């Protein structure tokens, strides 16, 4: 329950930043926050209260936490980092033409 509430609150907070904020960097921050919310949520809901999925010896360990979501989230974090790095590059590039980071002066990101 608490996980769902936190996830929805932070996810929509990030979405709100993307829709409303006037600065492109703020929008990228919003995107990062959305990603963080999703990743946390996935780890939290698949946490079965087990131990860390690393064993010390070859014997079979019981009640491990699910390692698959962790692997997927690891992939997701790297994807998110490269996405935001590329978006920030585009912002640097755009700054060359406009002297500003305000999407309202870019003809609007939502409207055209």
């Amino acid at each position, binding site marked *: 329950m608490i996980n*769902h509430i936190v996830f929805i609150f932070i996810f929509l907070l990030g979405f709100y930043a993307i829709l409303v904020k006037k600065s492109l960097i703020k929008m990228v921050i919003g995107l990062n926050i959305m990603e963080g919310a999703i990743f946390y949520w996935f780890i939290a809901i698949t946490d079965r209260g087990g131990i860390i999925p690393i064993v010390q*010896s070859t014997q079979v360990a019981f009640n491990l936490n699910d390692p698959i979501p962790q692997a997927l989230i690891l992939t997701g974090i790297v994807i998110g980092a490269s996405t935001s790095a590329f978006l920030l590059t585009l912002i640097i590039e755009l700054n*060359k033409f406009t002297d500003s980071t305000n999407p309202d002066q870019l003809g609007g990101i939502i409207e055209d």
Partner: protein
Amino acid sequence: MSRIKHISIVIILAFLGLIMLLDLNKIPNQFEYANSIYHHITNNAVGETGSLNFVTAILYDYRAYDSMGESTIIFGAVSGIVLLLSRKTLPVSSHGLSFIVKRTYGMLTPFIFLFSVYIIAHGHLSPGGGFQGGVILGAISIIFSIVYGSEFDYKRYTPTTKTLLETSGALLFIGIGLIGIIYSGSFLSNLNILNSEPGSLLSAGSIPFINLGIGFKIGAGLAIIFYSMIQKTFKEEASL
């Protein structure tokens, strides 16, 4: 006008959030999937891959193809960033921070390097692996440019070297995959070459090699990204 837009967006988002919350609350608190990959992997991963870290076993063996896609994403981002920022000049500055910071960082560097190599090489034994260690490798170069000024690092570790390191890391990954076809008939299958007892450093088949390839690739890629981004922009007329 903008105030109305603002409030309406907030109301719509709150409404959406409420719907999502009501739906998500119906999900059982902890779903016990009967016939899933979780049971297979937690029961057999150590025996099948030799890796004590299950996350590493999944990333570089069961789902190594995903990791290949992921490192390719980094490669694509690097290519795109270099493509976009390549008309700029790097402002070479030889004076960085103060003497004390330089000496301290100079002494610390070998240890940071050792730490990153440890994280890469122990990917199958402890938390960490190619991605995390690679980022630390990239961070060494980034901190060097901050502390010593960009000239210092730029001269010792040129963009060509970085590109070579990055592509060779990627090619190492694909090469291991292709050897897998010859060796056991399937792309990216685990080569049983380092088969000492699980738990020792030289175990877990080809996982350490893939870790190494990914580590170099990510480290070099992130250094390239950083160096492209600190290049100075110059104004130009907007072309057609």
